[in-house]
């Protein structure tokens, strides 16, 4: 199996955008092609990660639309929908296309247009992934987070403030990200005094609704220097995908995300590393509680200890294991199909030494992209070329 390199990357500004999904995808796609120094018609495969462009704006067939807009015909195209983990699943598909030898040059573009919908409408589109016995009770992804946060705080004797500190940290990181939706710090009192959304979680425990797009260009590692002669490429040293139950209450331990455990086991084994070898990580902090769960289920911290790492500053940008240097979904925003791609974009920037003011010392980075409430997960490990 061929090792796969990433030789081009881009992302649009995340936030409330006038552009619609086709335009957002084209903006990121054109920039990534430019970054890799290639044209659309150089691509063998073109994938689009997108959860719900049909439901959000009545636009389907986005991969073919993008191929036309970027003059990428006759590239093979496919849309990758895995709800909030569509981006990670797209990384997996793009990696697979090159690793298998089916494609010598693949581009993945993830994007979503959401902000023209009300919060209630957008929440319902996302909640439509739930099982009928969940949906009819009015469950939403934020309410899953509230249910899990209460149980976690109770089981592990964690203070409510520790969740708020995730939001404070990630907003602080987002200040230095020119693509982030929110580039402003928040203090702990603001988080803890914000309106309740799903008790015990409050407004600042949740990521915003976002428009945006991100893109990556993949090729076999042996030819990576043809596209990145200065060595500014990264290698996917490990990648794993896994699922957990569709029905959230059927999990043995509701505070454990089995898909995170299983996908990271696969990715670590492929990369030949363990969690202690990871220098920087982007986790799917759609809700603050998810940063605790994933940091534990990835093996960074013992079960029930993730909150202590945040309290002790371990996951700060200048800590031993920086988490969400991009600002995370919390500050950067969460345009569903784009988020997993943007996570890998941040790790690509970190391991190639191109993260600007967000730069940390990192040879190996990890991105964990979660769909549903841990229903589907892709974990990707990147290593810098130098």
């Amino acid at each position, binding site marked *: 199996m061929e090792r796969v390199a990433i030789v081009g990357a881009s992302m649009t500004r995340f936030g409330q955008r006038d552009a619609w999904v086709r335009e957002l995808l084209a903006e990121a796609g054109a920039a990534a092609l430019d970054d890799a120094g290639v044209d659309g018609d150089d691509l063998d495969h073109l994938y689009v990660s997108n959860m719900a462009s049909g439901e959000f704006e009545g636009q389907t067939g986005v991969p073919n639309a993008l191929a036309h807009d970027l003059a990428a015909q006759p590239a093979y195209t496919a849309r990758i929908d895995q709800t909030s983990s569509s981006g990670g699943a797209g990384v997996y598909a793009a990696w697979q296309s090159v690793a298998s030898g089916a494609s010598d040059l693949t581009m993945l573009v993830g994007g979503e247009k959401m902000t023209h919908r009300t919060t209630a409408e957008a929440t319902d589109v996302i909640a439509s992934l739930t099982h009928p016995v969940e949906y*009819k009770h009015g469950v939403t992804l934020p309410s899953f987070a509230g249910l899990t946060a*209460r149980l976690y705080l109770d089981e592990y004797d964690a203070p409510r403030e520790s969740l708020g500190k995730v939001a404070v940290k990630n907003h602080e990181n987002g200040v230095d990200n020119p693509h982030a939706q929110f580039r402003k710090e928040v203090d702990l009192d603001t988080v803890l005094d914000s309106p309740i959304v799903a008790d015990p979680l409050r407004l600042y425990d949740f990521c915003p609704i976002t428009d945006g797009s991100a893109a990556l260009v993949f090729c076999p590692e042996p030819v990576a220097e043809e596209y990145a002669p200065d060595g500014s490429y990264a290698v996917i040293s490990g990648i794993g995908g896994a699922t957990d139950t569709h029905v959230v209450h*059927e999990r043995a331990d509701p505070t454990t995300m089995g898909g995170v455990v299983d996908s990271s086991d696969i990715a670590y084994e492929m990369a030949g590393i363990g969690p202690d070898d990871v220098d920087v990580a982007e986790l799917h902090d759609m809700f603050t509680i998810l940063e605790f769960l994933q940091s534990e289920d990835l093996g960074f911290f013992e079960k029930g200890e993730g909150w202590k790492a945040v309290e002790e500053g371990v996951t700060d940008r200048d800590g031993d294991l920086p988490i969400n240097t991009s600002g995370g979904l919390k500050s950067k925003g969460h345009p569903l199909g784009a988020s997993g791609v943007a996570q890998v974009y941040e790790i690509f920037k970190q391991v190639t030494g191109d993260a600007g003011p967000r730069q940390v010392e990192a040879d190996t980075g990890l991105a964990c992209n979660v769909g549903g409430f841990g229903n589907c997960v892709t974990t990707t490990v990147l290593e810098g070329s130098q």
Partner: protein
Amino acid sequence: MSDHESDETSGSDGGEPTFEAAEYADGTVTHPPHTVGPNGAERVGTVDLREYAGRVVTWTTSTATPPGVREPNTLAIVEFEMGDGYDGPPVRALGQIAKRDETGDAADGDGGEQFDVEIGDRVEPVYADELREPGAGIREPDSQDWDGFRFRPVE
């Protein structure tokens, strides 16, 4: 609606609604029912969860609810006590917490004062013929049922 989607109540034929879970050949029980059990075992029967005591595993009150859902919406995950003879995975359900009417009993509709629950509280299911307004949200109204069981504390 297919048999697979008629997965919680079985009273639509005029009989008393039951809180339906599936039993599989290896003795495990799940709610909702699935085609096969968690270990791949064949589905062999049903269990009515109204016959078992339940305890609150966790709960939340959601204040930002989607179209057609009561606001606020208090939800709980409830685990059923299946007895000493049961050694399968935990049997749980997610459901709304009921509201009380003027008499203190569980209200049929969305009016009334919310029952309070805490982790570990004993609860019992109470039937509601409409948990959420069909058609108000994105899901096709005919694709699933909309009745089911809320929970109220056992005094």
